[in-house]
């Protein structure tokens, strides 16, 4: 993974120093709260329902055991002994004191981490495929380009006071695990006819109040031209994006109101006036970054491992976990281990400091000291030898991290909702917990198969409910929580925004309603069909029937 050189170190220290002074100036009154607000947001500091919340960046979701241990230390020292992984591959702390934040930033800088642009109207952490470098369907590891974008977007002098937040995601695989079309800019590594790898650029995707799936802005741009091209997009957005209404300020609205063709013309016109060579980094810099992501030293191991196969036969709990939590690795004899942060009764994405240290140890021992955070709020050890998996599993069991539900109905994405968030109109974590409880039988979960439930506690859609196979939106109607249900959302290469089923449900009705839909699906499905496939085949009506009793 990427390591800071002296310049990166100096830069991050200078940033943390700057923020320290900003806090001091807020406290002595030279900055008003109104002036301080965007400054603290740009450094990941939110005011939540009960306290400040600090969001720490995990660039493209890749970090080391050492960094994880430092995150654990911070959780113990400045927070309540836990952290929360977000849908943007970041981690947040829910209870730090404002005066401690500069010290936390120093501690982060010690391990090459920061909170730069994890919030605010600027370019946010670039997210990516959590299986990068290990996935079997990968054309190219997307992380060198993600790191390039991280550097380029850090404290950008021109694009730090944008109309609204700006999110970029990149994938290098044919199956999109980074939801790139739900981002302001989505980048897909593709190969052109000349056999060169470059990027296909999507623009104008986003969730929130107006969910839109991004469209192709450019079929192909070489990696050398990427930064100049991004600069052109950002300049058009910065100048013409709406600033009169916060809810219409994302680039998706600009693209929609301008029209994709005309928007493309504007970007190309701006691009034509740039000097790409003045903006792009030289080849040697691209190489320098890419070298940090070269493949680890894989052992030459056989594809079938006796110990592993035997453990699968002997231990049914292990076998079940293997089925849901392991993914195919590009190197035979290796596997991708997905660690679920969705235990029964837990809050999705939460992890204790002790558990963080366990994951750090496991990464060091079994996976080249590297961890990934996923946008589905889980963790990944991407390079594990099959022969080590059973030993690793047993340690996960002890740490209560062996929930075998990846991709299943209880692997729910969920925003903090009423439990933490000042904007929430309803609870969301308890909804997730109630669903997990209802479907707690692991065998039943496996029978149901792949299922993406996503829950948001208000229309801002941080829980990505628009792109859940089942999406749930918590609203408030006359002082009572009601939950709207959406069906058919999809975040992958066949991306789609889900459709509302009809009127909402009370908290108590909701869980039964979901169960009725699942039962319908199990009755109706053809062999091999996921919930989403069945829904697409039979349509909304039968689901409405079981939901509202109209059949």
């Amino acid at each position, binding site marked *: 993974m990427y390591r800071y050189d002296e310049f990166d170190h100096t830069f991050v220290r*200078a940033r943390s120093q700057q923020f320290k002074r900003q806090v001091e100036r807020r406290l002595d009154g030279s*900055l008003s709260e109104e002036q301080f607000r965007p400054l603290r947001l740009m450094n990941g500091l939110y005011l939540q329902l009960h306290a400040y919340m600090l969001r720490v960046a995990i660039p493209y979701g890749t970090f080391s055991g050492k960094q994880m241990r430092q995150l654990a230390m911070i959780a113990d020292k400045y927070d309540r002994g836990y952290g929360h992984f977000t849908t943007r591959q970041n981690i947040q702390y829910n209870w730090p004191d404002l005066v401690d934040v500069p010290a936390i930033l120093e501690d982060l800088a010690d391990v090459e981490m920061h909170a730069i642009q994890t919030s605010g109207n600027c370019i946010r952490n670039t997210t990516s495929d959590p299986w990068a470098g290990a996935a079997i369907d990968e054309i190219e590891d997307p992380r060198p380009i993600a790191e390039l974008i991280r550097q380029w977007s850090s404290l950008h002098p*021109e694009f730090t*006071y944008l109309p609204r937040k700006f999110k970029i995601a990149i994938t290098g695989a044919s199956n999109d695990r980074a939801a790139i079309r739900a981002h302001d800019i989505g980048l897909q590594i593709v190969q052109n006819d000349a056999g060169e790898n470059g990027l296909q650029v999507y623009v104008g995707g986003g969730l929130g109040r107006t969910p839109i799936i991004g469209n192709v802005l450019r079929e192909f741009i070489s990696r050398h031209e990427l930064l100049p091209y991004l600069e052109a997009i950002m300049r058009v957005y*910065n100048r013409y994006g709406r600033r009169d209404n916060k809810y219409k300020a994302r680039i998706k609205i600009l693209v929609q109101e301008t029209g994709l063709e005309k928007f493309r013309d504007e970007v190309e016109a701006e691009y034509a006036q740039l000097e790409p060579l*003045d903006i792009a980094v030289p080849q040697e*810099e691209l190489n320098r970054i890419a070298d940090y992501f070269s493949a680890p030293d894989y052992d030459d191991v056989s594809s079938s491992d006796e110990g592993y196969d035997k453990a699968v036969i002997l231990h049914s709990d292990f076998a079940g976990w293997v089925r849901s939590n392991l993914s195919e690795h590009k190197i035979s004899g290796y596997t991708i281990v997905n660690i679920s942060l969705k235990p029964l009764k837990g809050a999705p994405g939460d992890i204790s400091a002790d558990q963080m240290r366990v994951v750090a140890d496991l990464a060091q021992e079994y996976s080249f000291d590297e961890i990934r955070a996923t946008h589905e709020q889980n963790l990944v050890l991407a390079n594990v030898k099959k022969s080590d998996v059973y030993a690793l599993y047993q340690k996960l069991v002890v740490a209560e991290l062996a929930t075998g539900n990846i991709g299943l109905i209880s692997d729910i994405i969920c925003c903090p909702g009423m439990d933490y968030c000042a904007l929430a109109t309803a609870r969301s974590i308890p909804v997730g917990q109630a669903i997990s409880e209802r479907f707690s039988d692991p065998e039943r979960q496996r029978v149901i198969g792949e299922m993406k439930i996503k829950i948001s506690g208000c229309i801002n859609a941080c829980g990505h409910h628009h792109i859940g196979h089942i999406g749930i939106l918590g609203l408030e109607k006359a002082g009572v929580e009601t939950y709207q249900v959406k069906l058919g959302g999809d975040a992958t290469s066949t991306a789609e925004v889900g459709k509302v089923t009809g009127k909402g449900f009370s908290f108590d009705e909701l869980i039964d309603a979901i169960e009725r839909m699942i039962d319908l699906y199990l009755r109706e499905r053809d062999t091999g069909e996921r919930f989403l496939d069945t829904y697409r085949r039979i349509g909304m009506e039968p689901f409405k029937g079981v939901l509202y009793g109209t059949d």
Partner: protein
Amino acid sequence: MVLIRNGVELGHVSGELPDLETYLAGNEGDSVLLSPDVDLETLKPRLSGLALIEVSFPSFTDGRGFSVAKQLRRLGYEGELIATGPLIPDQYLCAVQCGFDAVKIEQECYVRQSEGEWNEALHAFDLFYQRGYVRQNPVSRNITEARYE
């Protein structure tokens, strides 16, 4: 209004520059005040006759002016370029990097923050990741270029 250049307060300035329409209507004058939604195409033919341009910032969170400055410099404008509005010291560097020479702020904004803070802000960073935004005074370096020096 207070003018700050090179981190130094240059005292009060009064008087308003003509807006774009007024400037284009006349044949005289070498200064203009641009709003952040300006269409630079209309100004292009007259650019070489200008010695002073101010770009207004309606609020400090409205970053359009930074792009306007960048585009003006790209069009070859070499005269004085001033950012006018309720900017805060923390944005001073951005302004300078995008091509502004100075900022002009309201007196009531200025009293909260001393000259020292503006000067400090100018020196908060001397290394930047972006190419094409390097400034001369005080000198800053692009990290990529520094890596291969």
